[in-house]
């Protein structure tokens, strides 16, 4: 129907502006590229919550055939718009997060030590933990 199509166009236009804004914050040279290492931050700041593995796949999708270390906006925009439209990588609700912690805390102490946390985190994706600054 014409109406629905209009609405979708408006939504897409709005997404485009949002994505552009987020992208530009990291586009230091104002040439529509960002460092590939910042893509994760951009995607996450737009409300998505991919795992490292999913992120790697995404990067592969938006990179050039010969990886330059930079991602171009032209390639990033359509992929990101799709993600937003499909509502992919949505963050889990907080109670699920809480249960995730409870799973790791088998002794039901109500806390995890730093060492335990490091152990669990690094077992999974082999990606180094960021500085802990909860």
């Amino acid at each position: 129907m014409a109406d629905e199509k209009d609405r979708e166009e408006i939504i897409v236009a709005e997404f485009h502006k949002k994505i552009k804004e987020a992208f530009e914050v990291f586009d230091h040279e104002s040439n529509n590229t960002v460092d590939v290492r910042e893509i994760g931050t951009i995607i996450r700041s737009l409300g998505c919550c991919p795992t490292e593995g999913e992120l790697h796949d995404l990067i592969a999708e938006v990179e050039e055939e010969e990886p330059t270390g930079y991602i171009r906006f032209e390639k990033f925009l359509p992929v990101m718009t799709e993600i937003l439209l499909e509502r992919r990588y949505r963050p889990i609700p907080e109670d699920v997060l809480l249960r995730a912690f409870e799973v790791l805390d088998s002794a039901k102490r109500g806390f995890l030590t730093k060492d335990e946390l490091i152990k669990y985190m690094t077992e999974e994706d082999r990606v180094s933990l960021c500085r802990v600054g909860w």
Partner: protein
Amino acid sequence: FKAAALIQRWYRRYMARLEMRRRCTWSIFQSIEYAGQQDQVKLHDFFSYLMDHFIPSSHNERDFLTRMFTEDRFAQDSEMEKGSDYESIEVPDSYTGPRLSFPLLPDHATALIEAFRLKQQLHARYVLNLLYETKKHLVQLPNINRVSTCYSEEITVCGDLHGQLDDLIFIFYKNGLPSPERSYVFNGDFVDRGKDSVEILMILFAFMLVYPKEFHLNRGNHEDHMVNLRYGFTKEVMNKYKIHGKEILRTLKDVFCWLPLATLIDEKVLILHGGVSDITDLELLDKIERNKIVSTMRCKTRQKSEKQMEEKRKANRKSSAQEPIPWFLPQSRSLPSSPLRLSSYKAHKASRSSSIPCGGCLDRRELSRQVRSSVELELERCRQQAGLLVTGQKEEPSYSASEADSEAGELQKPTQEEWRQVVDILWSDPMAQEGCKANTIRGGGCYFGPDVTQQLLQKYNLQFLIRSHECKPEGYEFCHNRKVLTIFSASNYYEVGSNRGAYVKLGPALTPHIVQYQTNKVTNTLTMRQRISRVEESALRALREKLFAHSSDLLSEFKKHDADKVGLITLSDWAAAVESVLHLGLPWRMLRSQLVNSSADNMLEYKSWLKNLAKEQVSHENIQSSLLETLYRNRSNLETIFRIIDSDHSGFISLDEFRQTWKLLSSHMNIDITDDCICDLARSIDFNKDGHIDINEFLEAFRLVEKSCLEDDTSECPQATNAKDSGCNSPGAC
């Protein structure tokens, strides 16, 4: 473990958002800072333009405008006379601060640091004495200081300090005091913004006199009395030195223009404040008389020949099509004319011609003509009024009679090229793209690309460039393939926790070694999130203030998006509208959640949003909010203008001067506030019977002045009458 993955995902998203907030906050501060600098330049362009185009027809007349700049044009009095003034100043026995005697010894310099740490103030006599000796020393220095590392083992280069004494003290504490073995270069911008600019200058000058071979200073764009009017140094001096402040400022003007322009280490590393441009010519810079460039704000360049000028003016009454339309004329669409642009259009004799607007302005629309003629009328009136105010002041040669200047033995003005060269090295910023383009954000100098850097380094066989001028989150930043190092030494510049400061040490082979710091105990105890939140809150407050200042423009812009007049607009429209009014280039959609509290269903009730903005700001019942808004928007402009009018820094301006200025300002900056309104306001604030307004009183009435200024003024308002608060709700005024 799936659980671990979930936690990891959540955590990374949290960190990403924090990072995004940090960057947005940074761009808010920067864009507001640079917009302020642009304003400054616009203001000066405005006055320059008026001065160019409305020259008094006989130099007996006192033009209201030229009077404002008379302090600029004082001939350089014989230094001897000026210098010996300080000897007549008596230092009371009760004075417990440091006492200096000349020639200075290292102990004196160290004593100064100690004294300032204990919050003592150096007596005006010693300040003037020190400045006098400093100038004597500076005059002997070349424009480009040449330093060799074979004498001292290490050289430390520091960037902008901007009146932040804590940072300077920290640097000396951590890196060691200057000595024959420890050289220092301070790369400009010692003053403005921070509250201890005077003290920093005293310390820096003292060490320079004590260790002349090892201690070097470069001039920054803030070592400039015009810039100081706006950014707080002038205010600081007048507050700290009520009796001798004027003299101190006058002497400083001299000292500043004698500061060297650059420092060269081992003929390999060039240190200068801003940057370079594609026309930077070190040989030329070496040769010019740097003291001719008193301020980079106003370009008073030597005209090729007086006769030519006269001819041009008479002959060519038509405006050229290429002449850029100054931004403040209503229909102007062009970029703000920066000092760069203004000077380049001066260089084109043809365009300089349209001094008097006339019927022959073919390209101008009717409106423009009307505006110009109204300005003419206005100035006519001013001239007449000014004529009444003729005092025994020195005869002021009119702007065009620069030849007469040189005959009278006044300081010769720099040429176009010389001025441009200096502005470039004091104001330019590096950019990532190749090329060299005008620095429209700052309004002066240019943006220079890696190719320009490379070209310069090759031409003069240099290794790399060290510059300052830009605040960096880490206190330093390399760019252009590590050929350019920005070093910035004022930590927490925008706000507590906003950035680190840094200095760089050059070791053997001149390899740079950076040391970072942040001088505030509070920052260390906060978590990263708290730190970011603090800075963010401060940035948002500044942003909201700016939004409020543009309320009426925003309202009309919002209305455009609300065709059905329901009082609602989409959030997307909100973002577009806000950007089109403020032109700050900020990521509004990212910031929206912080700026817009209530929005149902993706729509915003814009009227109540604007009302809420207003509520956050100070409001006075009996002052229309549009007036308040206008004053807010022009606050720094207003303050700067007042300080310019108050050329003797007395802190008082006459009601007439105020009214005239306001009229000029309002008709050319599209501020439509009636004169009556302004006069009513002025009257409702107490000023003494002979019609003088204390600048601070007036601004305070609208809470436009920082509290600190207030306290100082309490004792010094000789004219302060009783009913301070009549008509205004200002609590606890002067």
